[in-house]
């Protein structure tokens, strides 16, 4: 029995699988990160800081001494911090109602809020513009909340749905006020998920590119837009490398701080099946809370999306499917034309492969994070790609992955790999809090009752993390469908996806081009909703066995 005692008092880290298994858990994510992130990024930074075979750090000094670039760095940080706070403020109530209240259309709403994720910035900006949102700081913040609302709602909601409401009720029975019960019981339990959501949102907005350029107006710049300008336009790799290092330092500081916060948790939570914790709205107050949140989602997310859908049907000859037909006909004689059905298939193919890579690499990493003492470092390292400029990674791929066995520059696989880099932190951050919160006594009880380790995993771990995996898979899929970041700077032969089609259509004048781009955007939105709904349905069990 003594052997088991430490497990009871210091639960999470002590479950040690056999050595080879432990090494695979760490080795796969580390190898992936080194090959597809660290090595390419180091290579491109080396071109800037190591030009003639010896280290030249003077660009760092030049950047630090440049007042305009200091302003850019400062703006980058505070707009991201402000965007994150706003997204949390708007998203947390949404996470609560979607996690706790049962109402008709709930899963559809949960799927719809992910749609902004896949929409090209230029398309969203045109909807915003049609609604009278002029380029400004306000427009940047609004767009950042628009894009990251789902991150907060689904990351936090994923854990919230599993929290036992009786814990909070018990606190209230014992005399705690509603506020006190929330801040002392629920909030601490949610902390890992809130930190994860905040970190993801911060990193996304920290490296925001299209939103800043399109909705920020011409005077606003972030480190990301500046690195793009220095690399893709001016080819000043010295300055770009110095800025990238600045970006890297900021991100590492953030991740270390987050890790510190998270490190203090490791409380085993009483997790319950989501089905048990949800209930229908009872009081007038609850009804108002639900109504207010749904109204907010409608105004913030629904209206801009509706503008795009409406435009896709508004042909010169009245409402109709003309633009959808045009999608298959416009310039169909061109070498780079792709039939819309093929673009859909390409998008789905890339998204499926990206999701698979992200789930495998991220899943292994999540287990490593909770089982290794240095797991936190791995978690932080895997989040770095979110905070590093897409153009740095993209150009890094070009100059680093040019020799066997990694001669992948013009291979299609490079696209889902780039997507997976962005999606892996979602998997790790969504799965780890649940995995870390499983009461180890459950596993031990199962083992004592004679279950094999595999059976323990299947009966205890999987039902609890299955849902987190499903949510993470949904994000991974959406990230890939929407062609986030890096892929803009990677050559994509032969297999254009829907976002590529949209960009091409918007590159030329004419009502047909614009309308067809709106039609393609609408198809992309519909595809996302179907994909998310499917991921939710297909989830691997739930805690239903209590």
């Amino acid at each position: 029995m003594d052997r088991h005692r430490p497990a009871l008092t210091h639960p999470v880290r002590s479950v040690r699988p056999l050595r080879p298994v432990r090494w695979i858990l760490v080795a796969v994510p580390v190898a992936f990160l080194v090959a597809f992130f660290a090595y390419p990024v180091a290579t491109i930074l080396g071109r800037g800081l190591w030009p003639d075979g010896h280290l030249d750090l003077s660009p760092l000094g030049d950047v630090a001494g440049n007042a305009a670039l200091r302003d850019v760095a400062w703006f980058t940080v505070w707009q991201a911090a402000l965007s994150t706070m706003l997204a949390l403020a708007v998203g947390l109530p949404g996470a609560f109602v979607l996690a706790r209240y049962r109402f008709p259309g709930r899963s559809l709403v949960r799927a719809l809020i992910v749609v902004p994720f896949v929409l090209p910035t230029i398309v969203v900006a045109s909807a915003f513009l049609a609604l009278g949102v002029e380029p400004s700081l306000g427009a940047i913040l609004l767009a950042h909340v628009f894009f990251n609302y789902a991150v907060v709602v689904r990351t936090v909601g994923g854990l919230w749905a599993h929290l036992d409401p009786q814990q909070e009720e018990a606190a209230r029975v014992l005399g705690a006020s509603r506020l006190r019960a929330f801040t002392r019981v629920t909030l601490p339990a949610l902390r890992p998920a809130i930190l994860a959501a905040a970190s993801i949102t911060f990193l996304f907005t920290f490296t925001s590119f299209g939103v800043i350029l399109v909705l920020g107006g011409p005077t606003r710049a972030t480190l990301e837009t500046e690195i793009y300008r220095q690399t893709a336009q001016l080819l000043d790799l010295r300055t770009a490398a110095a800025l990238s290092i600045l970006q890297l330092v900021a991100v590492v500081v953030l991740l270390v701080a987050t890790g510190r916060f998270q490190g203090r948790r490791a409380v085993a939570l009483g997790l319950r099946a989501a089905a048990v914790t949800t209930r229908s709205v009872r009081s007038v107050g609850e009804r108002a809370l639900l109504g207010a949140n749904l109204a907010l989602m409608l105004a913030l997310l629904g209206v801009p999306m509706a503008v795009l859908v409406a435009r896709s049907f508004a042909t010169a000859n009245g409402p109709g499917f003309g633009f959808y037909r045009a999608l298959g006909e416009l310039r169909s004689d061109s070498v780079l034309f792709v039939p819309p059905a093929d673009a859909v298939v390409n998008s789905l193919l890339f998204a499926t492969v990206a999701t698979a890579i992200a789930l495998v690499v991220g899943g292994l990493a999540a287990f490593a994070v909770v089982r290794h003492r240095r797991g936190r470092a791995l978690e932080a390292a895997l989040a770095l790609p979110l905070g590093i400029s897409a153009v740095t990674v993209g150009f890094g791929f070009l100059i680093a992955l040019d020799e066997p066995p990694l001669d992948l520059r013009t291979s299609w696989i490079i696209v889902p790999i780039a997507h997976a880099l962005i999606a892996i932190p979602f998997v790790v951050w969504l799965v780890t809090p649940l995995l870390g919160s499983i009461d180890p006594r459950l596993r031990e009880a199962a083992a004592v009752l004679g279950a094999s380790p595999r059976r323990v995993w299947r009966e205890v771990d999987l039902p609890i993390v299955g849902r987190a995996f499903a949510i993470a898979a949904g994000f991974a899929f959406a990230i890939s469908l929407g062609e986030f970041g890096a892929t803009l700077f990677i050559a994509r032969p032969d297999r254009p996806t829907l976002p590529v089609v949209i960009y091409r259509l918007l590159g030329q004048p004419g009502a047909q081009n614009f309308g067809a781009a709106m039609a393609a955007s609408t198809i992309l939105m519909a595809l996302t909703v179907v994909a998310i709904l499917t991921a939710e349905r297909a989830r691997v069990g739930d805690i239903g066995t209590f």
Partner: protein
Amino acid sequence: MRRRGFSILCCALVTATSLAGAPAAGARDDVTLTLVTHDSFAISKSVLRSFTRETGIKVRVLPSGDAGAALNQAILTKDAPLGDLLFGVDNTFLSRALDEGVFERYRSPALTRVPAAYRIDTTHHVTPVDHGDVCINDDTAWFAEHGLAVPRTLDDLTKPAYKGRLVVENPATSSPGLAFLLATVDRYGEDGWRAYWERLRANDVKVVSGWEQAYNGEFSAGEGGGDRPLVVSYASSPAAAVYFSDPRPTEAPVGTVLDTCFRQVELVGILRGTEHPRAARRLIDFMLSRRFQEDVPLQMFVFPVRDDARLPAVFTRFADVPTDPASLAPSVIGAHREQWIDEWTDTVLR
């Protein structure tokens, strides 16, 4: 490293042999060429197929970002090129391409059909394929409705009547934006263009980061329902606006202010290090053939450089060509581009 050394040796040998004798017409090269381009490249499948039929050479098109990004990628991958040719370098970036030495020399015999104005690379590392003119476009209906005359010159744009009417692209992030800045540099000289932009700024010019936003967002004749009737776009935009409408209008909804144009010439070059220099040359010759040249307008909405290429009806009817557009020597642009963009930013945005 050994691999690269070997391929360079290979190329040297192939180059040497191909220099010894030009390929006989009709000779077949059973290779696949990779044509790296910017994202706006397009050509008809049937045209490319006819090239493959005649020569045996297959062509794979590899879009790699906007024109600046595609060139910079080519420079960064100089030691191990992504393809055999790069299309899309224009006169605003030509000097960088030449300084970095990414191209092999080739002088196509078909160049004799190209007017001297477009043969901007006298060193023959790159070959002109098309030209487009960046010009102010006007919303024809808006001006008719408001009983206002369409501006005719750059100077007109600074008049009070056109206050708050013009939207331009930021030259730091947009290729037409840079071209329009160069038009003003050419017109007002190195000492005068900043004063001109001060006047434009005082006349409430609006700056956005890219063409899509300017045309589809702010321009009143664009699709986004903007409120500015003047935009920096292309001389071919009226033709495109007609061509991509259903039903097709009989009058172009958009006009071109011909005195405000800057000429962009797009060029193709053979990437140094290619293993198929002979096939690559044949592709360049083909890109200057009438077949390819006459396909260019309706695919990319730019003009062919060949003097005998026939234009499609929608171009002859709706796309006016400026007779004397502004232009600057690529070397001058190359020497001043960044400095001018910085000065422009100080003048217009700060």
